[in-house]
């Protein structure tokens, strides 16, 4: 049996008061003109614009990454359009991002 895979797990909403156990969590929702957008490909890019990870947004548009302090951009791709948001984090906790695609 291989170690647990590297594939992204199913995404769920992240409570704002989640105990991140010292980790930097970047979470949020992808929305479009008609509300939450599920099935978007959500990509985490580091401060240099390099790809770090990708998840598929939940039916409610949720996504979550475990990162580290620094500058990050989250970019969402969907057949209806693309969008992105950036954040600079200096410590652990939940950091919220909202991304609209259209």
């Amino acid at each position, binding site marked *: *049996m*291989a*170690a647990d*895979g*590297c*594939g*992204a*797990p*199913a995404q769920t909403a992240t409570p704002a008061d989640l105990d991140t156990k010292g*980790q930097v969590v970047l979470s949020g929702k992808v929305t479009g003109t008609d509300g939450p957008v599920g*099935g978007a*490909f959500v*990509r*985490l890019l*580091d401060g240099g614009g*390099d*790809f*770090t*990870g*990708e*998840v*598929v947004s939940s039916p409610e548009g949720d996504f*979550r*990454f*475990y*990162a*580290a302090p620094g500058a990050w951009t989250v*970019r969402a*791709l*969907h*057949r209806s359009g693309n969008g992105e948001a950036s954040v600079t984090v200096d410590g652990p906790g939940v950091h919220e991002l909202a991304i609209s695609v259209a």
Partner: protein
Amino acid sequence: MSREDVLVTTQWAEENLDTPGVVFAEVDEDTTAYDGGHIRGAVKLDWRNDLQDKVRRDFVDKAGFDALLSEKGIGNDDLVVLYGGNNNWFAAYAYWYFKLYGHENVKLLDGGRKKWELDGRELNSEDVKREATTYTAKEQDLSIRAFRDEIVPAIGASNFVDVRSPDEFSGKLLAPAHLPQEQSQVPGHIPGALNVPWAKVANEDGTFKTEEEIKELYADQGLDTAKPTIAYCRIGERSSIAWFALHELLGYEDVKNYDGSWTEYGSLVGVPVELGAAK
């Protein structure tokens, strides 16, 4: 080898869904996506349940692979077109695995499920049942698979291509950023490894960049094409993308995928480990 020999476009795929002798197979670790909707007629290969040994940390043996493909209705002469989620990670892993067992006629859907979805192409949730075949695999082609005991002697003699993210490479993170960071093995990388994250060979829609772009990318990172190359990541699936790019797209001959990867190497006692960003 050319791009057309190893990749098909989503357009080609859509036009060949009913072509006799072409079998589409979706490969994933989490198969809920397939169950919710897949390319019409595609069979499902479950990375974990179908392709891994149930006890040992290894792949199913030849007899197991024969039984699996026979049951899925895949014949020795069929063209198998593999695709999957997660930017084709597990599909590329399966491509390498099919090659390992000597199935020559296999191609990857360029961009995988992501490109198919971004194109807005149809997904279908009907059950797929193909008539069983009698499949016979070859013995594993170990010229494309690297094992633990050949890693340390290869340091300095081979290129190591570490395809994990820069933060995993340097030791800052132990796993990709979409996973909790609780793994217990030591962080770092094989001394002298190049850090060429797998995503560098792909466009954001999941398709592979051009051969010229990929060649330049590895050359810029210092890949010595006169030496053999071993690709690795955390468990061997992202590195299958690099193996595919180097061995299948660029045609470099001596390229192995080290499927033990960092979860094995980073747990070995007494082996050299390097920390810090790529030089």
